[in-house]
């Protein structure tokens, strides 16, 4: 009977699908393996302290200090959160609690389309509009922590909005109705009941937004000014970990290139920590 053939075929298909499913793990392993293999040796050679806390980046002369870049990455990420966080949360709350059906049908796709605009376009418009604006009204060159924070603040909006919107929407309706039935206004029920109930998801949206900001490259290169020092103020230029890699990878060789991979190791570490926290926060919500 042909059924043996069918059973055999099913078994082969299952094995192929299993192999496909493992491909993601394989790719993840390869990425980590190659970044670490290229990036770690320099930590032995030049010293962990000299790289992570070193102030001077002159890879062709043996200086691999990326401390200013680590600080700058954190600063722009924090700046992006300050600008994009409240705005994104406001949008999410409006969409989830206030907007009518018709309004939602228009607003939600429009806000999601922001995520589709390529980062180079954000950077380009930042250079042409935000940088000159800052130069004219606040002084300096305009290529600055402030300009980078504004551009990144806009870029993290879709992440913040969509994840906190989902968190708000997953709050059971009975919570809202309970609060409203007791004579609360819409805002009182939102502020005292809905937002506290969704706070883990909102927190996760901010952490993932930070992940997006710390990993962003092309837009940052264009507006940050790429100076190799810790910015002293909002109007000072800076260089992030990501920009450092992208600016120099195309011509670097030898230890210089290894230095860029070391930069990548630090970046990957920061991203993993952020993702771990976001996952941790989300999982805690699910269990609750």
């Amino acid at each position, binding site marked *: *009977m042909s*059924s043996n053939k*069918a*059973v055999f075929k099913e078994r082969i298909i299952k094995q192929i699908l299993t192999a496909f499913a493992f491909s993601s793990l394989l790719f993840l392993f390869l990425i980590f393996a190659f970044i670490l293999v290229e990036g770690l040796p320099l930590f032995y050679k030049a010293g962990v302290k000299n790289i992570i806390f070193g102030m001077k980046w002159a890879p062709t002369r043996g200086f691999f200090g990326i401390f200013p870049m680590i600080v700058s990455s954190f600063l722009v990420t924090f700046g992006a959160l300050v600008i994009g966080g409240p705005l994104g949360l406001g949008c999410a709350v409006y969409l989830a609690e206030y907007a009518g059906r018709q309004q939602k049908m228009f607003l939600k796709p429009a806000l999601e389309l922001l995520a589709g605009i390529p980062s180079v376009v954000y950077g380009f418009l930042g250079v042409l509009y935000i940088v000159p604006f800052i130069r004219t009204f606040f002084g300096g060159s305009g290529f600055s922590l402030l300009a980078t924070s504004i551009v990144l603040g806009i870029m993290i909006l879709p992440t913040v909005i969509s994840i906190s919107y989902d968190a708000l929407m997953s709050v059971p309706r009975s919570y809202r109705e309970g609060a409203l039935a007791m004579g609360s206004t819409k805002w009182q029920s939102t502020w005292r009941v809905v937002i506290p109930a969704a706070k883990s998801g909102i927190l996760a949206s901010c952490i993932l937004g930070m992940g997006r900001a710390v990993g962003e490259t092309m837009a940052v290169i264009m507006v940050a000014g790429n100076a190799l020092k810790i910015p002293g103020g909002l109007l000072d230029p800076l260089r992030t970990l990501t920009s450092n890699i992208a600016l120099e990878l195309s011509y670097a060789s030898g230890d210089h290139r290894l230095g860029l991979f070391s930069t990548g190791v630090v970046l990957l570490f920061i991203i993993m920590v952020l993702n771990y926290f976001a996952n941790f926060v989300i999982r805690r919500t699910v269990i609750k």
Partner: protein
Amino acid sequence: MEAKILAHNLMVRFGAVEVLKGIDLEVYKNMITGFMGPAGSGKSTLISLVNRMIDFEDGVHIQGSLSIDGEDILSKSVDVVGLRRRVGTVFAVPLPLPRSIFENIAYGPRLKGITRRADLEDIVEESLKKAVLWEEVRDRLQVSALKLSGGQQQRLCLARTLALRPEIILLDEPCSGLDPISTAKIEEALNELKKDYTIILVSNNTKQIARATDFSAFFYMGALVEFGATEKIFTNPSVKQTEDYIQGKFG
């Protein structure tokens, strides 16, 4: 009378819950056998053993034996896909696939490797006729099956099962959601079909069992309480429980 299906000391547990407690039963060839009993009596579980749809449940433990034509169908080595082609099933709710009437019925035959259009057309016509649906849909075979009424959909599902040319047809409360006219049409179809098939009809409706079956089995709490000719069961049951159930005192 020849036994088509034979269950011997059949026990099923879902985790710690016993749903079948040692069933011994013969289902005769070319007869309609009715399974009745209140919800949770184990009649649907028994059906899902015959077509091995129970494989999709988790945590099932099975003991005892169940055979079709003397062949054990619970063993690991049995060809389940082939078995399901021999045992056709009609479910409680009509479940048409989201495709045309024609393609719904041709689904099973195509899987068996029948691809010639003329052959498929013959099978579709023959199956629809046997399910008493042909006259109503003959002009619109390419219309989506979802457009049919509930009663028509259920007869379509019967036709789709017949198109497999099975030996056994299992109907799991096929009329629970249908109006009396559709129910009558299904019963009419079954009466014709028993010449060629062995049929098991699961129903909560004792009147339907009385009308449409030759033999009846009454299940209660996972046990087979009484089995016999339908006429005897309904006129002179030997167990008090059966009598109470038939008279609608519980269930």
